């Protein structure tokens, strides 16, 4: 699923324009009644320590396949008109954008649910790993059990 199509994923180092991505989800269509989106950002603290930056590592090739598969599952569960997923990698600082998920559908229920589903599945199935820079040194972020339960409820 490549950029430019109705269902696309991008894994990139560059930042993205969330407003432009939102607009593109309904551009040149008259059947879109709902656009839901999520933007994930780098926080300046995690697990009791300040975070000055983080580096996101990923598995080139598998990452794109995993995201495509998650979008495909969302399309099978809900009636969706467009989906856009962007996930960044590399070194990011607090307030930087990490991830964008946008979903366009005829009605809000499908857009809300699919957007949350894609994020929950991405958290447990897309091969990304965060390494944080903190005052006590660099550390790899541990996976959260709450992320597993969030994905399991679907």
């Amino acid at each position: 699923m490549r950029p430019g199509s109705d269902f696309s994923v991008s894994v990139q180092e560059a930042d993205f324009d969330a407003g432009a991505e939102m607009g593109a989800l309904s551009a040149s269509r008259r059947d879109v009644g709902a656009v839901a989106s999520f933007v994930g950002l780098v926080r300046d603290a995690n697990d009791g320590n300040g975070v000055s930056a983080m580096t996101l590592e990923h598995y080139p090739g598998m990452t794109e396949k995993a995201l495509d598969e998650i979008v495909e599952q969302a399309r099978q569960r809900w009636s969706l008109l467009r989906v856009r997923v962007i996930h960044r990698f590399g070194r990011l600082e607090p307030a930087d954008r990490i991830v964008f998920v946008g979903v366009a559908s005829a009605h809000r229920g499908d857009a809300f649910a699919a957007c949350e589903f894609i994020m929950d599945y991405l958290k447990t199935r897309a091969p990304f790993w965060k390494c944080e820079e903190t005052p006590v040194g660099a550390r790899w972020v541990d996976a959260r059990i709450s992320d597993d339960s969030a994905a399991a409820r679907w």
Partner: protein
Amino acid sequence: MNVKVLYFASLREAIGQPGEELELPAGVATVGALRAHLAARGNGWQALAGGRNVRAAVNQRMVGADEPVAAGDEVAFFPPVTGG
């Protein structure tokens, strides 16, 4: 038979390399057996030992320990993912 093995994140750091080409010894036919074989090298490789939180993929698809490994496969080991 040869397989390509990749390591990511904390496993890559513990092992000290991003991957390798490997000729599998006789008797190693699954992801779980390959993981145990590599962990038995000791030192940083023990990060792959049983009981640790290690996930695996074969040909870029997440799999369980019983997944067969065949010649030409790309096998990856990594910690639970933390994107998003």
